[in-house]
């Protein structure tokens, strides 16, 4: 398998929310990213933190938006996200460091993520308490943005109507959990 095919293959596995593929990517670029981050005078612990957050943002973007990278590779995309996060960290620490490096090959990519509201945090904890089957179907629909037809294809549900009715039962259950608080 050529490198590009491997990259495309990994991309499609990320879209399918494959955590093992993500783990592979994590291990693959970890050292290189840390070396890259060191150039900005950030401690290794902070860089590792930024790396993990970048990997997570990248993964979630693949999952939620079925992202297909047109020309970039996973690596340039990941490092672009990382670079943006490094600059944000430097900014909060009021430190600016200009790097004049001809080797600089990464364009900053800003995946602005929204901090959850208190209500959304309660919802998140309720989602951890509902049944696995509910969590799984709701996750497919609301987090992965899969259509009803795609869910039928991926699961053992008989048809779209079964998915719809199960989903709405789960939403009702969630609402009841809120009411009983």
């Amino acid at each position, binding site marked *: 398998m050529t490198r590009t095919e491997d990259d495309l293959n990994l991309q499609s596995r990320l879209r399918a929310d494959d955590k*093992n593929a993500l783990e592979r990517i994590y291990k693959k670029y970890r050292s290189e990213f840390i070396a890259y981050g060191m150039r900005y005078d950030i401690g290794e612990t902070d860089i590792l933190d930024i790396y993990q957050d970048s990997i997570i943002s990248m993964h979630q973007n693949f999952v939620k938006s079925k992202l297909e990278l047109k020309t970039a590779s996973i690596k340039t995309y990941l490092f672009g996200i990382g670079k943006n996060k490094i600059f944000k960290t430097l900014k909060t620490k009021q430190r600016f460091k200009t790097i004049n490096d001809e080797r600089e090959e990464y364009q900053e990519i800003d995946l602005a993520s929204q901090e959850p509201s208190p209500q959304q945090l309660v919802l*998140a904890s309720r989602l951890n308490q509902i049944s696995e089957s509910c969590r799984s179907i709701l996750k497919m629909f609301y987090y992965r943005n899969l259509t009803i037809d795609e869910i039928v294809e991926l699961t053992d549900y008989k048809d779209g109507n079964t998915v719809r009715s199960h989903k709405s039962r789960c939403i009702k259950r969630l609402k009841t959990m809120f009411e009983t608080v």
Partner: protein
Amino acid sequence: MTQEDQIQNYLNGKLSTAERAEFERKLDTDADFKAAFEHHKNLQIAFEFNEANELKKRFEMLEQDKVNTFQKLLRSRFFYPGIAALFVLGFFIGKNLKNEQNLFDDLIDVYPNVYQPITRGQSNNDYSDAFVAYENSDFETAEKELESLLLTTDNENLRFYLALSKIQNEKFDDALSEFDKIDLATSDYNSEILWYSALIYLKKEQNQKSKQLLQQLEETGSAFKAAKRKKLMETL
């Protein structure tokens, strides 16, 4: 296109510029539509938050593995008490203890001796005692024999059968340690190792880890225990 389709397409970035503008106009003017969108968005953000936490934990575990490479861990005097502590903790945390134990009992079997088949009239070799015992389901003896053979020869196949004997003797942590010493990339029994390790983690109620190994096995394209794997994967 249903309202839900529209919302999903909007969030997926699948709408054209004109459709996006129309969508946003509707958000401003139609309160019910806006409520449906907020509902979807709230769930998405809540899941995002949970998933990010899960992943963060997973990476932290990876980092820990890196610090204490497995070899170091094995030599450490804290390893076995640690595993024991995890086991006890798992015991208290796990709610489905009974289910997992039953599943394990359903799925575990005695892997056949395909490495040193014992045939009648065959002259004895160094490995005979161990494999005769193994074939006779005398796993205590098999374990002892294999352990003593491994003192003088580093043979991965023998180690594989040692781990299997330990499973039968219910020494699950020891079995895992033996499996971990075998290089999956070169072993003839890599599918088997992944499968039996997954079962041990099931027994230990570390379902996530078990699932992870099954997925790894899936990726090898191996047909070993395919039906049972499917069943277990569905349950997990």
